[in-house]
């Protein structure tokens, strides 16, 4: 058993750290192309300098174009969050769309006490936790990701190394999917969205201490699950 733990931990140590890949802003050519295309989405440039809370007020005053700007600003992070729960593009896309529809309907109840992004995350997490177990995911996530990577792999990486990384990522994602709901949400928000514990507490409606405890248990359970899968 001790040897297995050691082998597992050696494998973990060989993983690239997030520090090497830090930063959430688009950097690759692909991402630059995406950013340029988004500029041409038809959003009124006059809105671009307006902050999120002001956009909510504009929307409530009847200027619906303001909501389009909010969608444009937050759609990627909301989609990514949904993807991390759903594991495939089709369901993530549907979930993200529903998040924004729900947000629009609830706009009148938004008190402005949190950031709009935090509020959207809260809607997304609640929706995903309620919906994802019943989603019929027909495509294995790894297959979909490799398909998508055909467009974006500009790092000259060997195909087998990419495949290995994809398999590992799929294993991790499958293990995360087995975690209890709150642990799963905490881990996704903390590790993948890099949110501070305080903001996660606001999203999940928990105390900061409970979020940290959940995160600890999530990591401990995840380690156990990954070890079981590696046997």
């Amino acid at each position: 058993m001790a040897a297995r733990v050691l082998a597992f931990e050696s494998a973990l140590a060989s993983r690239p750290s997030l520090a090497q890949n830090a930063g959430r802003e688009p950097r690759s050519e692909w991402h630059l192309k995406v950013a340029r295309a988004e500029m041409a989405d038809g959003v009124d440039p006059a809105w671009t300098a307006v902050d999120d809370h002001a956009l909510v007020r504009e929307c409530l005053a009847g200027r619906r174009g303001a909501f389009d700007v909010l969608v444009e600003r937050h759609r990627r992070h909301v989609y990514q969050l949904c993807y991390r729960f759903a594991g495939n593009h089709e369901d993530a896309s549907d979930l993200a769309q529903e998040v924004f529809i729900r947000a629009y309907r609830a706009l009148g109840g938004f008190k402005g006490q949190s950031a709009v992004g935090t509020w959207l995350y809260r809607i997304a997490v609640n929706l995903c936790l309620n919906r994802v177990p019943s989603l019929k995911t027909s495509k294995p996530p790894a297959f979909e990701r490799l398909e998508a990577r055909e467009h974006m792999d500009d790092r000259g990486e060997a195909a087998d190394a990419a495949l290995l990384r994809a398999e590992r990522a799929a294993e991790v994602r499958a293990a995360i999917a087995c975690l209890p709901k709150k642990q799963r949400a905490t881990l996704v928000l903390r590790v993948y969205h890099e949110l501070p514990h305080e903001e996660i507490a606001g999203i999940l409606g928990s105390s900061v201490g409970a979020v940290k405890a959940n995160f600890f248990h999530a990591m401990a359970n995840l380690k156990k699950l990954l070890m079981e899968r590696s046997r």
Partner: protein
Amino acid sequence: MMTHLNHLNHLNNVELVDSLDGALPASRAGHLDACDACRERVDSLRLTMSAVRPAEGDDVPEPSPLFWQHFSRRVHEAVRDEPLAPSSRWFRAPRLGWAAATAVVVLAAAVVLWNQDRRIRDAVPGGSAPIGEQASSTTEDLSWNIDDDEDWALVRVVADDLRWEDAQDAGLHARPGSAERVALEMSPAERQELALLIKDDLIRMDDLLKAEMKRTGA
């Protein structure tokens, strides 16, 4: 004994997470430096964390630019026919909403009655009682004859969005000083919005008053 005390002082789960984040208080950092068991737990946590963290682009593939355009359009079309949320933020905060509505009613009533009083005073020779006395008696009349007073019927026209029964059920009653108290609780932006509401309603009420005076020949 020493070992026992050390065991009792081990970092708890929350502190282990704090340590991972570099947020462990200095008072506990000393224990971590001295305790192999706690350091092993933190290292293990850190290793698991590095395993979970993805390389860039590994966990969520970036959809095509066309997808984002379609996505925004789908959301836009889905909400296009949705009824808008309440367009006024007064009604998003019930307490403030009622306070604002009450303030509109009270302030509008005061202006209407003051205008009427001035007309009467101008029309009647020698009708120049001290303003303070007039205001006092007027307010007193308002307080006691609110349901029968025709002036308050006009006020209800001003506050046609306000259900009077609901306001009374909510325990709101117009009394001298109500408007001032409500106005003092508002932020500058809210006061500005209230002033605009009152201005709009007064213009509308002035038109009604002129039409009524024209009809009765007053």
